[in-house]
């Protein structure tokens, strides 16, 4: 089993947060290429979270998070997002607290 697909939801979203954090740091620093690369990796990971059959009953928020991340980094920020690092960092912290 691929290691990402073996993680808990908290761990998976924590991993997404690492890439989102990189994308946000690049965005703040004006490095568009780095921002897009990290955001692409974040979306790829989010797509794998969405595809995980374990989370099917809980897809609403995961899909919404994916759409907002896509809107923020690749769209027009229609939903006036101010960033996601805090949202995803919470999951990383929670996964560490559970160990």
């Amino acid at each position, binding site marked *: 089993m691929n290691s990402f697909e073996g993680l808990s*939801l*908290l761990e998976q979203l924590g991993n997404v947060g690492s890439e989102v954090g990189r994308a946000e740091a690049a965005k703040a620093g004006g490095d568009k290429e780095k921002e897009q690369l990290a955001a692409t990796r974040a979306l790829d990971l989010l797509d794998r979270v969405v595809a995980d059959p374990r989370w099917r*009953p*809980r897809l*609403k*928020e*995961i899909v*919404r*998070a994916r759409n*907002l991340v896509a809107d923020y980094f690749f769209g027009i920020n*229609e*939903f*006036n*997002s101010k960033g996601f690092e*805090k*949202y995803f960092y*919470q*999951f990383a*912290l*929670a996964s560490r*607290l559970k160990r």
Partner: protein
Amino acid sequence: MEIKVFDKEIYLSELEKIAAEQFGDLVKAVVDIEKKVMAVGGELHADEEKQLLDGGSEQKNLWGINLYPAKFGTEEFIEFDSMINIRPSQNNRSRSVEDESMQKKIRELVGEMMHE
């Protein structure tokens, strides 16, 4: 962690315990402003939302917030930030609660329920 739904008092110590076991400094909560209940303890706001919907709540009355036990008694105790709040049909187009009168209602409800 099991999601708990409160319709009366919630003690700060309960929130502190949930925070310590989950996210460290915060507790995710969803309030039903009409039924005056609050669900806490979910990993996702959407998990709490689902529990309240299953219990008869209407989505238009549900709002997601984060509670910071260490900031109890201050404005920073409640943070209006949740994926479930994005509801264009109610003219709420961000993760926040954009209607200040609704923010006030939520603060009042949480204030009535919280006990130190």
